[in-house]
């Protein structure tokens, strides 16, 4: 049974994610928090959760609901489950924010909202994992993007488990005295989430999306497998050994942790090399705007890798960690997100609006739904803002950081308007009448052995 492969709720995931992203940017702009701020402060906790749960998690889950069926050619377990997931995650996030505010504002009776909200988010994630896990597990043969997403999901489970342990220890420290030191594992929690989950998943999805729209070979060979295996091993070793070192900081554990760190660096370097290969091997001469802008996101990942390597060599990784995390969230993951949305949103809008009319009359092209002239400045402004804010975070200069966040926020709003226009086909409607399709081809004579159309690219030819 062929089912409709469009994910009904994906646009709602994207819209919610963007609202949360802009909300987090507004908090940073208002000076509520910035990367060197105390992690435990309510404003910092709210901003971080808006960014990683509200923005990145909803963005990636919305994208997976759409792309897992494309990657596996199998339908989701359920479309309704996607809506349930959205409601649980967004509702849970709002509960957590209210809980943080309540605790910070001296209203302890609101504290129950923290575990309740966290529980709702966890349920939402569990629903999502089941929904994409079914087609991923059934897909044969499995593809590299699919396997990377599966690995990412394993790290998501680890990240959520760690988060729940933190919540349990914080709410009842007396109950688990031997587990209390785990609170020192916030770095491993972030590494598992931003690295193992978001980064490996983003890499996997990019291995599908980049070749698809640049017409490059999808088969990544040994290099692609290397990125996956070395990356998965690196994040696993670094997270597990990092946690073990909290209780037993002995030489062998520290060494394993270092091996993990080196493997992560190697996997990122291999990935960037492979992405360069995809761009160079493309058969489409002109690169579309979303993939031109994505080069900025890959550059930010490269800068993050280089600075992490330099800082690690100088034993100063801890000092740059906040700026590094900001660069990874806004430059790499956020940058890849906003640039790919610029293709995904008009593509989905085009399918929903015009799919049924194809072949039956003139329809706009996908690229008629966007206006590159309007979007390009926002990508530049966003990249400039990320650069300024990252340097400011590194220099520990809060005012300059806010000066950098301002263009990021303006660019995000500007791009959100462009996505909105694409979704509502504003540009296509404005430019009616649309470009007419080529004149109808003559109906070929049926069932004549000699009627052969040798048809390549845009050169249809009929034999007499």
């Amino acid at each position, binding site marked *: *049974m*062929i*089912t*409709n*492969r*469009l994910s009904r709720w994906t646009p709602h995931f994207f819209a919610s994610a963007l609202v949360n992203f802009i909300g987090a940017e507004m908090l940073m702009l208002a000076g509520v928090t910035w990367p060197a701020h105390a992690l435990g402060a309510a404003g910092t906790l709210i901003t971080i959760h808006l960014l990683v749960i509200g923005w990145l998690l909803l963005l990636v889950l919305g994208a997976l609901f759409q792309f897992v*069926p*494309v990657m596996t*050619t199998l339908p989701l377990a359920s479309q309704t489950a996607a809506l349930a997931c959205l409601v649980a995650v967004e509702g849970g996030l709002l509960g957590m924010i209210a809980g943080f505010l309540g605790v910070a504002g001296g209203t302890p009776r609101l504290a129950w909202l923290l575990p309740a909200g966290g529980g709702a988010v966890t349920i939402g994630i569990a629903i999502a994992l089941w929904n994409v896990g079914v087609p991923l597990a059934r897909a044969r043969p499995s593809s590299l993007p699919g396997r990377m997403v599966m690995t990412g999901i394993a790290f998501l489970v680890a990240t959520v488990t760690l988060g729940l342990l933190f919540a349990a220890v914080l709410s009842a420290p007396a109950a688990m005295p031997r587990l209390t030191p785990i609170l020192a594992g916030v770095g491993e929690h972030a590494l598992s989430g931003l690295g193992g989950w978001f980064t490996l998943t983003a890499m996997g999805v990019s291995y599908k999306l980049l070749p*698809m*729209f640049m*017409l490059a070979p*999808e088969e990544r060979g040994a290099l692609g497998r290397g990125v996956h295996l070395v990356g998965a091993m690196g994040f696993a070793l670094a997270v597990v050994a990092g946690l073990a070192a909290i209780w037993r900081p002995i030489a062998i554990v520290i060494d394993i942790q270092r091996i993990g760190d080196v493997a992560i660096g190697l996997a990122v370097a291999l990935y960037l090399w492979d992405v360069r290969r995809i761009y160079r091997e493309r*058969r*489409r001469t002109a690169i579309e705007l979303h993939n031109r802008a994505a080069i900025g996101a890959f550059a930010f990942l490269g800068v993050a890798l280089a600075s992490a390597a330099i800082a690690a060599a100088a034993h100063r990784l801890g000092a740059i960690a906040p700026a590094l995390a900001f660069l990874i969230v806004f430059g790499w993951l956020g940058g890849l997100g906003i640039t790919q949305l610029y293709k995904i949103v008009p*593509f989905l809008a*085009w*399918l929903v609006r015009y*799919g*049924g009319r*194809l*072949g*039956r009359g003139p329809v706009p092209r*996908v690229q008629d739904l966007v206006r590159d002239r309007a979007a390009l400045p926002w990508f530049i402004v966003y990249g400039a803002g990320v650069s300024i804010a990252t340097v400011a975070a590194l220099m520990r200069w809060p005012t300059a950081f806010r000066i950098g966040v301002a263009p990021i926020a303006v660019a995000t709003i500007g791009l959100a308007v462009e996505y909105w226009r694409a979704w509502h086909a504003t540009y296509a409607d404005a430019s009616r009448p649309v470009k007419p*399709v080529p004149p*109808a*081809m*003559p*109906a*070929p*004579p*049926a*069932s*004549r*052995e*000699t*009627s*052969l*159309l*040798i*048809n*390549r*690219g845009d*050169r249809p*030819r*009929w*034999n*007499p």
Partner: protein
Amino acid sequence: MEPLTLDLREELRRGGEPLPRILQAVDQLAPEQSLRLLTTFEPLPLYAVLGRKGFGHDAVRHGDGDWEIRFQPGTNTAPARTAVTPATRPTSADEWPTPSVFLDNRGLQPPEPMVRILDAFEHLGAGAVLEAVNERDPVFLYPELQARGAAIHTEKVQGGVRLLIRRAG
């Protein structure tokens, strides 16, 4: 026995349609004699046409981008048709009429293959069959075809997916 060689490159570059010449050459072949074609691209639809006459094929792409295809009589062992996507109903494409339209959609960016297939589909006569070769399984195309009452058969081929689409009638 020396194969019969047909160099179609000049004609193809001029935009000509060499099929009649090919079929004429096939008729002139001695028993067991093979046919050697020189073309500017891989003539995928021809494989099906000559395959039905019992010809197997070997294709080689030369460094200059041209293709050399050798058709060997009596070597066509019908490729196993394995459906990679379940069709709307069980379809035995073996009993379908010869495809009357061929679309080579390789090298096109999504959603262009889908646009071309639906455009050609809407111009098909009742009961007629369209054959297309895509680089990717066109997952967004199937619901559209299903809504238009088409029967679909797909099989994986080297470098992509081969689709047979039959219009109701």
